């Protein structure tokens, strides 16, 4: 675990990088890091996240700045700019059921090649995928997802990189923290090692 400035953290990310970003409608997103990515004008990003939040909020700021070439998300309905850029051919959008998306990310972080889910069987989500029947029930083979960087927001971190999340700001954060080559965390509070009981997920980057 290294303590670095938000400017330096954003500078680690090259144009064209794939990013998993925590947050659910902007709640639990690393806002300071996103602001810095916008300031540094990182381009052609692939953003893997639950949603695209809304203009002016969380991932929505990256969309507004035109920095996202592709997004893999479960929901973009509250960000009209994403829909406009998608229809204008400026952004590729891959829509994935929310439970499938988070489980593909979990698989990527847990060393699995993919997962079998009943969600999407017989719908447009099945197109191009393998259907596997087990004990008379049908499942889709959904492949694992990983990214170059995971951008995580935590309520509290210690100097060893243990993270604690607040309420529903947890969402995708602890799962993406396992599924990327480099994990960058913004924490609202940083406390000495040992000052919190052992009770939450641990992560080092």
């Amino acid at each position: 675990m290294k303590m670095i400035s938000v400017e330096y953290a954003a500078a680690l990310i090259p144009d064209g990088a794939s990013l998993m970003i925590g947050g659910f409608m902007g709640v639990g997103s690393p806002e300071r890091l996103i602001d810095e990515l916008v300031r540094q004008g990182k381009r052609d990003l692939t953003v893997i996240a639950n949603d695209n939040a809304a203009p002016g909020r969380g991932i929505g700021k990256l969309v507004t700045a035109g920095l996202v070439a592709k997004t893999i998300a479960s929901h973009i309905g509250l960000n009209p700019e994403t829909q406009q850029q998608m229809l204008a051919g400026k952004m590729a959008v891959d829509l994935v059921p929310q439970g499938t998306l988070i489980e593909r990310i979990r698989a990527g972080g847990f060393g699995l090649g993919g997962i079998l889910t009943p969600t999407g069987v017989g719908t447009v989500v099945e197109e191009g995928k393998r259907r596997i029947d087990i004990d008379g029930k049908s499942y889709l083979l959904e492949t694992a997802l990983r990214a170059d960087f995971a951008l995580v927001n935590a309520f509290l971190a210690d100097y060893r990189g243990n993270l604690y999340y607040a309420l529903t700001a947890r969402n995708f954060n602890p799962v993406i923290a396992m599924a990327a080559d480099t994990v960058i965390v913004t924490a609202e509070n940083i406390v000495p090692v040992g000052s919190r009981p052992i009770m939450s997920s641990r992560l080092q980057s």
Partner: protein
Amino acid sequence: MEAQTIIAKRIAQELRSGMLVNLGIGIPTLVANYVPESLNVYFQSENGLIGTGPIPEEGMMHPALTDAGGRPVSALPGACTFDSATSFGLIRGGHVDMTVLGGLQVDAQGRLANWMIPDKMVPGMGGAMDLVTGAKRVIVAMQHTAKGKPKILERCSLPLTSMRPVSLVVTEMAVIGFPEGRATLLETAPGVSVEQVVSATEAHLTITGAIPEMILS
């Protein structure tokens, strides 16, 4: 009574004590307003909360306590939070007793389309596909028609949310179930005749004997 009030009140009657329930955005959210006080029902928000309470008063909102639409909520005593993988484990794994979702179309077998209108509205499915696939009971809360056109059809023209039929469709005109894969009229709303329901429904409705009226307090 307004259409959405009829729908929400009728669906609230499907709640039982101890149930874990997920409510979608729109009319489904209103169901929480009609939970009888004697019932202990737990509401799940798919962003990672069980024990979702009412919208907090001004000044009592917490920026990290929100529902699946990102709006501030409260948490009742005994509430818990968890990550999204766990949240969808609850949903897909059949641990959610009942989900209530909005609908664009439902076919004669009870299969729901509610997540996109090609070339017009492509918001993404969010958690809807997982909820319809995995919750123990799936109830659709929707208006019976859209601009005078039936929404309960022989076949959906819109992409399906899941191949799994829903348990119940509740509209301001009727309650429709799908026993043996056939759309069946179970109740009519007060003041609505069976003929009115039939003429507002494209799918063939099985009608057996006298159809009771919804009882709305």
